[in-house]
């Protein structure tokens, strides 16, 4: 049932770009720290800043390694995948370290859908990214709805997945110019990689990703994938 697919080279190059960006920043921090050690080591206040900087840097490195380990090999292994099972699993996961707690109300409305050819690991990552965005946008008082239903035609069946939040929404300019660009983010401390990578993963599954949003009106992310037909994409 499993079938290797083409390596997602563009995904890797995006990740490599982020890696270079993050590592340069870390290197900058450490060089500066090194240059200060000699002059200020005797000062206990300086030693406190050293501990904090090292702890923060180690955490940042672990995040980078985690991000890359998740995409190791760069090969998609597509199986006939139960999208609902994957969505359920991802929606029930706790928030990743360093991300906002998932305090918004969550609702799952998963309909009967055919299977799709998909890599559960990559696709789970893409769903998780989109859900994280939705939870962060919704905030503690908001609601995040995840639904799935069958679509397309009898000859070309598709599976539709929607992730809806009632958060602040986005302006048309942001949607048009910045939403899918790597490194673009409005979140403090965010690297702006989530949506750009998620969108590439969806494309590697011959899927589409559409976003409907307006300020004050929340955001709807609609994914559409071809259902299992004769052979994997």
């Amino acid at each position: 049932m499993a079938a290797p697919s083409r390596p997602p080279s563009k995904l890797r190059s995006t990740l490599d770009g982020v890696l270079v960006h993050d590592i340069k920043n870390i290197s900058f921090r450490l060089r500066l720290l090194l240059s200060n050690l000699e002059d200020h080591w005797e000062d206990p206040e300086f030693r406190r800043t050293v501990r904090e900087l090292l702890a923060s840097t180690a955490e940042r490195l672990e995040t980078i390694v985690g991000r890359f380990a998740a995409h190791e090999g760069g090969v998609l292994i597509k199986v006939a995948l139960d999208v609902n099972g994957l969505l359920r699993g991802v929606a029930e996961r706790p928030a990743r370290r360093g991300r906002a707690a998932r305090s918004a109300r969550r609702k799952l409305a998963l309909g009967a859908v055919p299977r799709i050819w998909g890599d559960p690991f990559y696709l789970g990552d893409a769903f998780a990214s989109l859900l994280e965005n939705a939870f962060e946008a919704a905030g503690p008082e908001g609601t995040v709805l995840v639904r799935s239903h069958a679509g397309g035609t009898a000859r070309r069946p598709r599976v539709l997945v929607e992730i809806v939040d009632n958060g602040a929404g986005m302006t048309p300019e942001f949607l048009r110019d910045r939403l899918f660009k790597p490194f673009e983010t409005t979140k403090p401390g965010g690297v702006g990689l989530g949506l750009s990578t998620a969108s590439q993963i969806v494309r590697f599954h011959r899927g589409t990703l559409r976003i409907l949003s307006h300020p004050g009106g929340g955001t709807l992310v609609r994914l559409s994938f071809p259902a299992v037909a004769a052979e994997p994409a």
Partner: protein
Amino acid sequence: VSGPGDRALGRIVIVDDDPFLIEQLTWALKGRFVVASARDATQGRALCESDSDLYLFDLRLPPSNEVREGLDLLRHVRRRDPEATVVMMSGEGERAHVLEAIALGAFDFFRSPWTRPSWSSSSSAPSSAGGSWRRIASCGGRRARRWDPSS
């Protein structure tokens, strides 16, 4: 906050979104500069309303995390004081941005990471930033003389 003992020190404004970097830069400049720092362009702009001897800005800054934030800050400071010495920092070093920053009047452009910054050093260790810094320090003018470490 400046005290009476700080009168001989220069004032530097640092705007960077990494608090750890700001902290280490502050240690590196201790005894030479009074550091005023901000983590985003909006707060940074407020700090630039007071005269400073030197400005050190990251290129990408919140709130938008776009390159234009750093460039706008540079433009703002140079408009307010055409002689202001502004040094830009970036881990990216995209040629177009470097050229734009220089055209807007940036004194120099550091491609981080740098090695030991020469303003904090009594030695003459060569470094990428050191070269820039020596040029800044030797540029003359009242500002440069005030904070030239060899003076």
